[in-house]
């Protein structure tokens, strides 16, 4: 029973991370029709920024998070301006360009941190909240969860209550129709990748004290993001959030009771099943071609 409770808590915290980077991927795909293969590397750069500024050079954690968000957002904007915009007619070209970026960012990380052992960031929030003896939540994880919820709520407000948010969703639904309405596609694309990049940077920054940081950490991130995106529905942001939480719980419970690799295999099979049975995902939004 206690194990179940502990697992639910662990799953929810993981779900927060998953949602942060999956929502960004969905946003970029929805608005720009490009699969950003380097999304995991954006998260990785966020984590490296924390390691470099906070763990190595003593900048406080919260400002370091701010810098991480800015750095990753800028990388995202550069990718849109110089790679995705010129290749907008060919989604495959955009994908390949993002793979090129992936290689470059991994090397940047290696140059910053050196090869060898994974980097560690001592948690800025030490200690553990003991709810009762076998339900314990480290303060660092509580902090991450709260920040994830705040960030996602802000995004939700932005998308549903602001004019720009409406425009963004309109482009995601049907780019040509939106253009005909006089929406500036280039501007909306910049905003989409900016928001996606910021969320990826935030996810990386929040994960930094909780995980092994190395140039290849983006790999697991992108696999998870794909699964969450597909299960949630390729064009659906709310679907991505729900799928992120559900998948995190699913993954946590399979890991606890059957083992970690099996959990990932089950996740991948789940994804293929969803693709076959309901390609539009659990939230069932049609994406314009």
């Amino acid at each position, binding site marked *: 029973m206690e*194990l179940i409770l502990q697992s639910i808590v662990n799953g929810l915290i993981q779900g927060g991370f998953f949602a942060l980077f999956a929502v960004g991927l969905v946003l970029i795909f929805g608005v720009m029709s490009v699969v950003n293969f380097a999304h995991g590397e954006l998260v990785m750069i966020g984590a490296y920024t924390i390691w470099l500024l906070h763990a190595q050079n003593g900048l406080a954690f919260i400002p370091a998070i701010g810098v991480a968000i800015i750095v990753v957002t800028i990388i995202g904007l550069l990718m849109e301006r110089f790679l995705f915009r010129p290749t907008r007619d060919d989604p495959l070209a955009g994908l390949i360009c993002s793979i090129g970026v992936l290689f470059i960012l991994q090397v940047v990380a290696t140059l910053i941190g050196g*090869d*060898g052992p994974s980097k*560690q960031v001592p948690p800025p929030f030490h200690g553990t909240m003991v709810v009762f003896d076998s339900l314990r939540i480290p303060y660092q994880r509580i902090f991450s969860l709260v920040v994830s919820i705040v960030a996602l709520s802000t995004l939700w407000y932005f998308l549903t209550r602001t004019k720009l948010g409406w425009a963004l969703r309109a482009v995601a639904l049907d780019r040509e129709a939106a253009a005909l309405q006089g929406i500036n596609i280039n501007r909306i694309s910049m905003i989409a990748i900016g928001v996606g990049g910021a969320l990826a940077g935030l996810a990386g920054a929040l994960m930094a004290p909780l995980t092994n940081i190395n140039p290849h950490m983006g790999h697991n991130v992108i696999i998870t993001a794909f699964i969450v995106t597909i299960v949630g529905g390729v064009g659906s942001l709310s679907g991505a959030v729900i799928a992120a939480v559900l998948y995190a719980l699913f993954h946590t419970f399979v*890991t606890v009771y059957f083992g970690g690799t099996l959990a990932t295999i089950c996740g991948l099979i789940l994804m293929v099943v969803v693709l076959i049975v309901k390609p539009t995902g659990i939230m069932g939004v049609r994406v314009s071609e």
Partner: protein
Amino acid sequence: MGITRRDILRATAAGAVVAGTSSLPTGLFAASNKTVKIGMNIPMTGDYAPWGLPGLYGCEIIAKDINGAGGVEIGGEKYNIEMVAYDHAYDTEKAVQGYKKLVLEDDVKMVMMLGGSTVASVLPWAQRKKMLTTTLLPSDITPKSEYLIATCESHPLYNVTGVEWLAKNFPEAKTAAIVTNNDAEYGLQSAATYKAAFEVEGIDVVDVNLHGFDITDFAPIVSSVLAKKPDIFCMATSFYVTPLMEQLYHQGFKGKIISCTLDYYDEIIAKTSKEFVNGTIFQFPDFDDPALNDKGVNFPDPGGFDAKFRKDHPNDWSAVSWEYPAILLNWIEGAKAAGSVEPTDVLKSLKYTINPAFVFGGGKWWGSQLWGRDNSVVGRWPVVVVENGKARIQEYRSVSDWLAKNKDVLIKHMKELGLRTV
């Protein structure tokens, strides 16, 4: 951090690396000496780099010392030692290419490797070229692998010493859970050994959790293991000691922790607390440990070596920092005794030494009962415990004595986990 490593990498240009730092001074000190090249076909980039690159640094220190003192006399000739390294990044294709480059093009007299699939892929060539090759994983040895030896690390057999020490000093610990990555080269070998050692001590293994390499969050794994309420949490050559320790700390584990390695334990302390890490048992000493001045130890000036290493490479000390150098020292002894640098002569002289100069003393050739060939040296091995934030050797225990009594238990557990035994 990392800047020194980066500079070295650049200077040595990972592909066809010549360890310039050691070969340059040799010319200055003793120009008339001959040069003998020793190859290292190791991971210097990527995930496995911590178990390769620090070994090259260590060997360079040893070679520099020897060359600085006028070289080593073998068969009436003075030799300088030059390290030649190739980075295979733990990739079998690159490992084969690196091996051929070192053996066929660079004319090295021995090739040191880490082990596993990269060693397996070069074995046919070791056999054909009669090239002395070393591994840190004796489980690479097969009945056919005449030229492959493991003279330093007898992974994972020495883990039994930690368990013996634990059982003797903490008799109240009666149950154990083993966690490790699910791979036949490191994790499973080690898990089988720990299972055997626990069985011999009458400790119940309540859970064996084998996980993959794709784990980002260790909270669920640790939760599920701690639900079994083990007295001892055992990490069997895990690649994820740091995140596991962190979760143990947060989930309030109060029992004993035993692990094969505890690399970069100062980082673990930074992520948890000194009090929590204190008392953790593992197998790899720091070389400034006074217990290494024990007269059975075959390593010249361990403290001086430690100081030089940490001065040149402050953040790179790992389990392998002294292991490749220890193998290099074994080779020098073998070559001196043989009066020749030729691989087959050195191998013969090493194998004919009944009591080889094992790094922690008490060495014996062993292995035919488990792997089909007596090409691994087992001897004494230190039990290391973290005391007040510093790794300290508690005592040396004999691996060979344990094997003499309990090898059948070990073989049983190896078979149970599907590992190759003879």
